[in-house]
């Protein structure tokens, strides 16, 4: 089979096989809408908290009003004392307790010790806990500035030193804008990998003869092109539709996307050649999806992982892809900013391609020799 015949044959198989078309085409479209859905509201909102206001003064009521107005928390109830607040938190009613102790106003105005604000959060859910902390700090800072304002203005000072936090690239510090661009690389890898491995494992299950080199290259090119289409569908259309931050470095993408698709397609050809049945491909590869996402370093940075694990993580094209495509698509990076990872990805394409070629064409040479 010539290169061109194999290329066309591969495309025909993908388009006519229900299994392949649904994994490689339909699933790609489905994930583009399904995966961002739980992150569409972008930020932690309305974490339930209980309030114990021992002082019940103008200041504490102002703090509570501010708190009720914040996006992060939702005041479930005002409770009379700490024991009942603790009991209600333990019953699962709230994720945190905010205590305004008696003497909080006096402490604020005179600096006398004894009054303060106590916050207890269930830190097992880390993201909720930090949302409560942020909500409370903002509410108190606002109220305190109001109260202290006159004294400070008399001295010609407002806020002595301001510290301004500014999220870069994902300027709303949104959750979807953070997760979806990263997970997109994992989705693109896994859907292509499942399809290619299923395709090759199916050949082996049917007892198809080993591939000639031209046929192998044709199949690899066809699968790579599919991966390129899927990637540009995400980076061009879906990122715009989902309105995630877009840096739009198209020339750099034209270089790196084919490397990524070729590396994934080659890995799929190689792994598929190891499986005994076509279903085995998905059964083995699907469970790796969740760990592979975390191994990209998007939630916990690669540099904080043990170095041997970070090195292994880089064997998955998705890990390199996240650190190439997120900078190119979201941060406005140039090709030189991601050069090291891009070269590594190209090298992976070559190595996996060579391994797959060896595995899939191997017995054709031995058959000819015999």
């Amino acid at each position, binding site marked *: 089979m010539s290169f061109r015949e194999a290329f066309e044959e591969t495309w025909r198989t993908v388009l006519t096989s229900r299994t392949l078309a649904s994994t490689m085409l339909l699933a790609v479209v489905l994930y583009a809408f399904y995966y961002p859905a739980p992150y569409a509201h972008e930020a932690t909102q309305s974490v339930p908290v209980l309030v114990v206001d021992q002082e019940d003064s103008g200041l504490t009521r102002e703090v509570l009003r501010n708190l009720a107005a914040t996006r992060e928390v939702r005041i479930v109830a005002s409770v009379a004392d700490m024991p009942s607040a603790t009991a209600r938190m333990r*019953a699962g009613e709230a994720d945190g307790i905010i205590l305004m102790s008696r003497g909080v106003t006096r402490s604020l105005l005179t600096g006398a010790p004894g009054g303060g604000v106590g916050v207890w*959060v269930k830190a097992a859910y880390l993201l909720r806990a*930090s949302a409560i902390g942020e909500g409370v700090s903002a509410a108190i800072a606002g109220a305190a500035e109001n109260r202290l304002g006159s004294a400070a203005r008399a001295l*010609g000072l407002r806020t002595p030193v301001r510290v301004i936090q*500014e999220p870069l690239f994902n300027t709303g510090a949104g959750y979807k804008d953070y997760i979806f661009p990263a997970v997109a690389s994992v989705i693109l890898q896994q859907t292509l990998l499942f399809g290619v491995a299923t395709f090759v494992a199916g050949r082996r299950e049917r007892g198809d003869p080993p591939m000639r080199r031209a046929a192998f290259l044709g199949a690899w090119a066809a699968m790579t092109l599919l991966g390129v289409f899927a990637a540009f569908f995400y980076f061009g259309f879906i990122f715009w539709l989902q309105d995630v931050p877009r840096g739009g470095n198209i020339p750099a993408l034209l270089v790196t996307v084919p490397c990524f698709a070729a590396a994934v397609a080659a890995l799929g050809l190689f792994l598929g050649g190891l499986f005994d049945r076509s279903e085995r491909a998905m059964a083995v590869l699907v469970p790796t999806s969740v760990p592979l996402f975390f191994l990209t370093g998007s939630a916990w940075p690669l540099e904080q992982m043990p170095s041997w694990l970070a090195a292994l993580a880089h064997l998955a094209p998705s890990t390199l892809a996240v650190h190439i495509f*997120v900078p190119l698509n979201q941060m406005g990076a140039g090709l030189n900013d991601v050069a090291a990872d891009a070269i590594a990805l190209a090298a992976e394409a070559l190595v996996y391609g060579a391994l797959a070629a060896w595995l899939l064409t191997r017995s054709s040479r031995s058959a000819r020799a015999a």
Partner: protein
Amino acid sequence: MSAFARALSAELAHLRGCRWDLAMLTLMPAALLFAMGAMLFGGVARELPIAVVDHDATSASRAIVRAVDASPAVRIVSVGGDLPDAMTLVRREQAWAIVEIPRGVGRGVARGTAPAIHIRYQASFLSTGTQAVRGISSAVTAASTELVAAQLSAHGLPPLRVTPLTVQVTALYNAATSFEWYLLSLINPAVLHLLTACVTVMALGRELRDKSLSAWARASGGVAGAVFGKLLPYVAAMSLWGVAWLLYLTLARGWRVEGSIALIVAGQSLFYLGTACISALLVAVTRETSTGLSASAVYAGSALAFSGATLPLDGGSGFARIVSAILPLTHYLALQMGQFVGDAAGSAVGPILALLAYVAIAGGGAVLLIARSARSAA
């Protein structure tokens, strides 16, 4: 021998003979759980690289830089006077944040202007960027407070308290705010869930003949018994891995479960049984292993995102909340996290009933469908 016992022993015999299927119950979970455990072994991020842009370059700004450098969360990899250079470091992922100190930070207070220290952080990798910014901002606030106090007294002004209120935040049940306890609690059940879904689809899918389970069902001698006997080895293996993971977290890593471990272990087995029942229903309905696997990849592969355990779904769309309520992982995590933090045992009743519903509805539905196809084919 009952249909249950026959199916169970047939499945065990198959597992002894099939290296692939056996590996999916042994090597695969071992490798995945080990990788995730190793990944989060550090737990709290230390020495995250950051850059400093110091436009002031006075003793005051250097005091701030020293304070930031002393924070265990971050490590300064570059101090310069140029913001674009620092931005390049962030784009290249060589720095997670930039502290920009304005000119005149040392004089601003006494002159009545309010100099602003900017902390710009990597928000495309929000989780790590946020950790860096927390470490920096507490150091900067503390340092600038001291700075202000020193300046005021140097100018003969009365001292002004700039941090007038103490806000004492106590992180319950995870005092170190460790990512190990937080993320491993969520990742590993999600991994075992997805594994269970795949291996059980494969187990039942193996019995499909000409897109039908009826031949297998007729030979089984009792569909309900045969389905549960077949699924039992997988549910048992995943439950044992779940127990091993709990033992690792508590005994080896020293995390404390405040509530009932027994409830978590029971809930976990029920969760994997429910997952196996969903797989049985998927195979019975789609009558194709590959479609069952695709469906598992979609629903179980993204279940963690929909569980509300990372980003809460309060404020989320109706669609996301409905999907979340339908997925079993949501209910299992509610049970597990509640027991981790010592919620009252009563709060586990709802999740347990929800998990039982998967066994009853999906398991019952699968048995009915398979039995019906066996009868109609006969």
